[in-house]
């Protein structure tokens, strides 16, 4: 794994995709070593809030040496990020986390599932899977018809939409859509809210489908030192010896069967 670093980046572009949802491209050489499913820590400039915000990588442009993040305003830190304009300096910590196991999808029918602010990492994942001769179906779940990133995703596979209010695609969640459209899956890769991931773990478990899910938890250091962001594991992990894997380091992506969520 590449060395983690704290680096200065600069904002290339910033736009609102949907209410509270922003899309920012950052120029940073971290792009050279980043991969799908990893995340970066983004630091607020205002020194009243000190900790880096873990934000998943939505797209990587190695040629331009740029990273794209699509994030939701959840507090003072992300609200500040949304105010940044092109040229703004930004401190980043990265690249963090393990990423998705792309090779598990080789020559397989792979279903990517993203819910809400768990959708962004699916874009880079779908893009990278193009090289793995996989049959990619992407199922995205939204609250309403604010279908951010849908068009970007369609470049890399068949996209099915589920919305909680039924305003677009199948009414319900990503699994409702999967069943409704009778989508076949040999591998599942997903990111989204915990209830969605629990449902996917159960669904995949019953059918014996390998599923890789990306977890979220409040983090402090982001590099595995503080033990803030742990999740229960089914097998004793090498690091903690108490069935606590660090989402920032052993994760954020886990085989669903390995974690007790």
């Amino acid at each position: 794994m590449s060395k983690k670093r704290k680096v200065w980046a600069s904002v290339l572009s910033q736009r609102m995709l949907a209410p509270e949802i922003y899309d920012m491209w950052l120029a940073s050489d971290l792009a050279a070593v980043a991969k799908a499913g990893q995340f970066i820590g983004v630091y607020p400039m205002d020194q009243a809030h000190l900790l880096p915000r873990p934000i998943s990588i939505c797209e990587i442009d190695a040629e331009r040496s740029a990273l794209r993040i699509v994030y939701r305003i959840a507090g003072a830190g992300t609200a500040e990020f949304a105010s940044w304009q092109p040229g703004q300096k930004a401190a980043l910590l990265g690249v963090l986390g393990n990423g998705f196991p792309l090779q598990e999808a080789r020559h397989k029918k792979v279903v990517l599932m993203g819910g809400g602010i768990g959708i962004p990492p699916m874009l880079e994942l779908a893009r990278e899977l193009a090289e793995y001769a996989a049959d990619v179906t992407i199922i995205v779940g939204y609250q309403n018809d604010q279908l951010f990133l849908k068009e970007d995703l369609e470049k890399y596979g068949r996209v099915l939409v589920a919305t909680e209010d039924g305003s677009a695609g199948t009414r319900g969640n990503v699994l409702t859509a999967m069943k409704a459209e009778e989508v076949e899956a040999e591998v599942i890769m997903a990111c989204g809210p915990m209830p969605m991931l629990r449902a996917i773990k159960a669904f995949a478990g019953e059918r014996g489908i390998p599923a890789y899910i990306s977890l979220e938890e409040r983090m402090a250091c982001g590099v595995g030192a503080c033990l803030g962001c742990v999740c229960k594991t089914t097998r004793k992990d090498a690091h903690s010896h108490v069935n606590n894997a660090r989402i920032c380091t052993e994760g954020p992506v886990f085989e669903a069967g390995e974690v007790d969520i």
Partner: protein
Amino acid sequence: MDRKGNQKINTKVTIAGVTFKNPVMTASGTFGSGMEYSDFVDLNRLGAVVTKGVANVPWPGNPTPRVAEVYGGMLNAIGLQNPGIDVFLERDIPFLTQFDTKVIVNVCGKSVEDYLEVVERLGDAPVDMLEINVSCPNVKEGAIAFGQRTESLYDITSRIKAKARQPVIMKLSPNVTDITELAKAAEAAGADAISLINTLTGMKIDVHRRTFVLANKTGGLSGPAIKPVAVRMVYQASHAVKIPVIGMGGIANAGDAIEFLLAGASAVAVGAMNFVNPYTTTEIVEGIEDYMENYGIEDIAELIGGVRE
């Protein structure tokens, strides 16, 4: 000699017979056993690495959420998750001994016997000092109970001293009425040094969910927000006892570190700020050298307790 080859500058400090190349250490629980930060920091440049607390058996720690950000700092309620002394001796100690830095092992327990077992197991290990954590606010039994009452602090300190093969640092809690009473009790019981402050007990409530942000309800407050309290307690404690004081609490830069030295600390530790700027420790080592050069201070001893009364 400093990094620029300036022969005139001495940054070495000696605590209980152990000499550190500089007074900059890591605060227990914020640096793992060094491994996680070796991407960022050359451990050879640190005065010492103080490890995450280790117990006689593995501890699972508290449920999540374990951390929360607050103004100028953070709350944590990790609950001293650790793999236990066996894994620690097999994995962490061999890793740390590769580096030219001192190793201070932070010891935690739920009963005096727990502490004593760890202290004994470490007796033959290549460890320079022991730091006894009797001030963690996040574990129900033991820990804090020992650190907030002079009698129990005296008792556990003297019993550990009777068994310890390495010099013993007692890490004190700031959640007390009079820090000098605790400092004196530790000294009277034979402690070789004291370190302070551990975290201040705090709480954060999510007003929209109307729930506690931390699963443990309360957590330890650390970061720049607590620095004035830490400097005050280091000043009071270092004037109440003759044993050395290791100061910590919100140190973010060389100026902060020097503030603790002037207040009376013989060494300092960087805690939460490692999470904010992983290069903090080494930047402080360099910043102290620059300060000494700017003010023509040849020996760092001139700074320790050097505030003008």
